[in-house]
């Protein structure tokens, strides 16, 4: 909500807004802008766009996604196609992931790093033949494109697919809903993508998402996205879901949000994203920040990203300090809120490595008030991704 309407200290529009979002400039509108408004969305500025933060209410939308299928408009995210000579080898200088070994049509979560191992962005990269389709965060996309263009060799080209919209359909009923509309998508395994047809025209669909549930992300031209959104929401199992529930869902799933839980001061090892650096890349190095990352893998990072179980009914939010038993500051909360699934507050943040063991009792300080917490395993709510061969 804009203006002095309600003296809210920490409103979602601010807490969700990535740090470099330029809210003072003119906001862009999504291809589905009027569609969202017609569905009763409350729109807020986010990542340079006017975006739906909620429709009927965050808790209802959150629980709907955990039980049925939620439709998210994530068209603010940057969709890039990177191509050219030896593009996998070229990308491996900026990203610590194994892209050369990535099979066709498979997705890999990776990180765009600066030379000191700081995280410039987190992203999903998919091999499409000789090319890579990369989805980056909305607030950081222009900076990312600049990084790629200046740091990749001249014979590697970055195309910004500006006209493509991106929808996510997430939840345990997502597969049956989408299969009815686009036959064959149910055959995709988790972190696999492929070309499909909707209404006689090409779309790109992957089995992936940001909620911890099974689900899909669908890249489709902005001119066609309303037809798809209408077709999906005509199914009674599907409701549109706003940014508010997107944030609470990903927090329960223990997934970091760039600009809050990840930034240029955090490394992949501090963030607990070691899975994104495989054995070959650890052995060979040769990526931005490798020296620091390999040292942190060897000796442990100075801080680690952890979850917190909060022993209170009051949510503890981003910015709260983490204190040890003697009152020394040992870390900071980077995301926090109320878990609709667990019906209690949860949080994540960074603590000094000696305090990062599961079960370590700590205190959080928010506005002069202390909260007892324990370091918690993440995810807070188990992932339910679709594993091929699983029941």
């Amino acid at each position, binding site marked *: 909500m804009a203006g002095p309407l*309600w003296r809210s200290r920490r409103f979602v529009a601010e807490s969700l807004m990535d740090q470099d979002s330029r809210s003072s400039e003119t906001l862009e509108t999504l291809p589905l802008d009027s569609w969202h408004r017609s569905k009763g969305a409350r729109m807020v500025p986010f990542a340079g766009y006017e975006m739906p933060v909620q429709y009927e209410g965050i808790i209802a939308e959150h629980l709907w996604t955990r039980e049925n299928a939620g439709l998210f408009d994530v068209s603010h995210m940057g969709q890039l196609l990177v191509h050219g000579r030896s593009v996998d080898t070229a990308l491996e200088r900026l990203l610590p992931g194994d892209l050369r070994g990535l099979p066709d049509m498979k997705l890999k979560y990776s990180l765009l790093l600066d030379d000191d191992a700081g995280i410039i962005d987190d992203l999903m990269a998919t091999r499409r033949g000789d090319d890579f389709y990369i989805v980056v965060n909305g607030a950081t996309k222009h900076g990312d494109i600049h990084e790629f263009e200046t740091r990749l060799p001249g014979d590697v080209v970055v195309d910004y697919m500006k006209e493509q919209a991106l929808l996510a359909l997430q939840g345990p009923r997502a597969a049956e809903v989408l299969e009815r509309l686009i036959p064959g998508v149910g055959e995709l395994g988790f972190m696999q993508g492929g070309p499909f047809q909707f209404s006689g025209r090409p779309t790109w669909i992957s089995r992936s998402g940001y909620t911890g549930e099974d689900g899909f992300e669908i890249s489709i031209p902005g001119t066609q996205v309303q037809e798809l959104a209408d077709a999906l929401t005509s199914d009674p199992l599907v409701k549109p879901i706003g940014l*508010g529930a997107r944030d*609470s869902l990903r927090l329960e799933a223990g997934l970091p949000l760039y600009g809050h839980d990840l930034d240029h001061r955090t490394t992949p090892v501090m963030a607990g994203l070691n899975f994104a650096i495989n054995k070959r890349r650890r052995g060979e190095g040769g990526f931005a920040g490798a020296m620091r990352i390999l040292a942190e893998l060897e000796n442990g990072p100075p801080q680690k990203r952890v979850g917190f179980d909060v022993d209170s009914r*009051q*949510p503890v939010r981003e910015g709260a300090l983490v204190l040890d038993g003697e009152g020394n500051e040992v870390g900071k909360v980077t995301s926090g809120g109320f878990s609709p699934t667990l019906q209690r507050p949860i949080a994540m943040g960074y603590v000094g490595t000696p305090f990062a063991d599961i079960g370590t009792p700590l205190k959080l300080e928010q506005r002069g008030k202390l909260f007892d917490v324990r370091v918690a395993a993440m995810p807070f709510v188990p992932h339910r991704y679709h594993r091929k061969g699983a029941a």
Partner: protein
Amino acid sequence: MSLYFTKEHEWIRVEGDQATVGISNHAQEQLGDIVFAEVPEAGRQLSKGQEAAVVESVKAASDVYAPVSGEVTEGNQAVADDPALVNTDPEGAGWFFKLKLSDAGELSGLMDEAAYRDWLKTL
């Protein structure tokens, strides 16, 4: 009995020198799903404009301010136990606290209901 509102979206219902304070329907709509409420204890002295209670939704944390000065006579344990009551009945059972007015003259600076609803339309 008189009903007043503040520009911070509190309401205050006054009977003699006793007043009941809560947040308006508009405020609860803007906050969304309320998951936490903290109310003041009886006996606490509040001066006008002071932070008196806390209300938090999934997405936001806010203070409830004392619209006028006085001594708290009761905090509403029902909203502390079931914060969603503020969503379902903000201007009734979802009240936050009662207080004994120390200066009834402070009421003259507040909006009546019609003025408040008109003012909302200008936001």
